């Protein structure tokens, strides 16, 4: 790990001010992904700003009837919150499908959205990777690509987004609240939060330099059966090959987003319009234009089957949220 200086910030304003002073600074919350990458020198911040003491660790009702989740709320606490379990089951389920108990106790809401891809070439500093070192090339194209993305990719990068929580946040139309370097607040819809790689795969979100996530807000609960189905190589503690987060209505319609297949949670209104026609139609619409590799082409039928399993489960359990 490269040496770095360290400070503990006491307020969001102090944190963004500190970041503005130091171009190589990073915020650290749970640290479960950042420290992992720093040990491998994939991330080499020169200054760390500890944001655990900012008081952003509460879950509060909003005046619109939703929930405001502080950026530092731990994954365990968010998943276990009685309101989230009752009204936003897809979010609880997605969180509990991710990582291990130990990691969920540290990992935060904001950090989860910001976690980096697990593409093996991103982690291997001996290999070219446009995301880690812009312009160096993509080793995954033509290399090991089984876990990687099949849609939303570019000639420069086929990395997939690893988060389960983000898939549920996308289904729920969450909003990311931030504070910019100048202290101004802004709100970013989750759909616009993650970028597609294009020619700049190193730019993963629409956050500005030094911009701090302060909260993630959920709108009023969406009635329906909340489900999160994750398919992976082990029964527990593995990243998704394919995951589906969904809120399904009694008539078979609803909303859904898919994880493990794209550089961001993948959702489309057109596919949701096709949901009543069944999993095959909806999956086909969602994945139109997909460009899988030989190694990960299995994900296309797997999305359809996982979605079919979710629709079947919704029909069987059918309990409104």
């Amino acid at each position: 790990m490269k040496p770095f200086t360290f400070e503990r910030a006491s307020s969001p304003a102090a944190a963004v001010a500190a970041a503005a002073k130091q171009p190589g600074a990073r915020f650290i919350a749970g640290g479960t992904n950042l420290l992992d990458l720093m040990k491998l020198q994939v991330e080499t911040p020169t200054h760390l700003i500890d944001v655990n003491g900012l008081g952003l660790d509460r879950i509060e009702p909003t005046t619109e009837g939703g929930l405001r989740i502080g950026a530092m709320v731990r994954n365990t606490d968010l998943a276990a919150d009685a309101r989230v379990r009752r009204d936003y089951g897809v979010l609880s389920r997605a969180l509990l499908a991710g990582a291990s108990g130990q990691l969920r106790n540290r990992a935060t809401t904001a950090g989860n959205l910001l976690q980096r891809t697990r593409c093996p070439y991103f982690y291997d500093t001996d290999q070219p990777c446009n995301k880690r070192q812009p312009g160096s090339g993509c080793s995954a194209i033509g290399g090991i690509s089984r876990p990687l993305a099949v849609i939303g990719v570019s000639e420069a990068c086929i990395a997939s987004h690893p988060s389960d929580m983000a898939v549920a946040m996308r289904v729920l139309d969450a909003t990311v609240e931030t504070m910019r370097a100048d202290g101004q607040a802004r709100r970013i819809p989750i759909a616009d939060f993650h970028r597609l790689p294009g020619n700049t795969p190193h730019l993963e979100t629409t956050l500005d330099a030094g911009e701090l996530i302060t909260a993630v807000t959920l709108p009023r609960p969406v009635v329906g059966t909340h489900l999160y189905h994750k398919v992976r190589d082990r029964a527990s503690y593995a990243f998704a090959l394919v995951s589906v987060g969904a809120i399904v209505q009694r008539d078979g319609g609803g909303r859904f987003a898919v994880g493990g297949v794209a550089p961001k949670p993948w959702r489309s209104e057109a596919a949701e319009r096709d949901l009543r026609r069944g999993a095959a139609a909806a999956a086909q619409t969602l994945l139109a234009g997909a460009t899988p590799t030989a190694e990960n082409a299995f994900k296309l039928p797997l999305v359809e089957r996982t979605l079919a399993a979710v629709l079947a489960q919704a029909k069987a359990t059918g309990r409104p949220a």
Partner: protein
Amino acid sequence: MDLDTDRTDVASPPSPTDAAPRDGEPGAISRRGVLIAGAGASAAVAAGTPLESAAQTTSPAGPKPQENLVATSRVTLSVNGQPHTLVVDNRTSLLDLLREHLQLTGTKKGCDHGQCGACTIHLDGRRVNACLTLAVMHEGAQVVTIEGLGTPEKMHAMQTAFVRHDGYQCGYCTPGQICSAVAVLDEIKAGVPSHVTADLNVRPLLSIDELRERMSGNLCRCGAYSNIIDAMAEVAGVPVPGAGDRRSA
């Protein structure tokens, strides 16, 4: 042979906190002590070179060194009920603080990347991977390690159960397994749901499936999983089908 040679080659105990007394041989040099002594020489040099002086030597005639380039921080935290104040390199993981600075070597370093769970400890009452958090992030924290959970004379119920059910072979992952197991039962008691909890709106049940899912962050290459679950089930009071057969076998 090598081990014996190491023992006779070392003239004096390398560290006042060497693990030898715990082996029941006061004054004897343990293999671990020898390894620490070997690493000590280079570690001492590194520790004596804070980054401030390094910056000065690399740019002796240039502009004044960056005032903020201090790569160490002071941290005060409680470990197993004992307060400690240390100045550590900012890069020091909580795991390395425990093992290298406080010589609490019960907590193990397996992968050092949060994948194996060997470094599981209790931080402010919750299980975490000590390898994936920085020591300097834990000002005022309460840490409990395997050494604080129980002692050879007064073992924690989970430690006793692991011994009774043979919940290990090589033992390397065991401190992490035990710390995790204790926390798992607390989490179920507190109503924290898991991936296998059938209904999110009722309290999770104490079941073998729940224990297995919640322990998935602790790997055991010897494959002692079924015995670990038996030990946990005994402490939790969950009946385990077939557990009696395995024990008597």
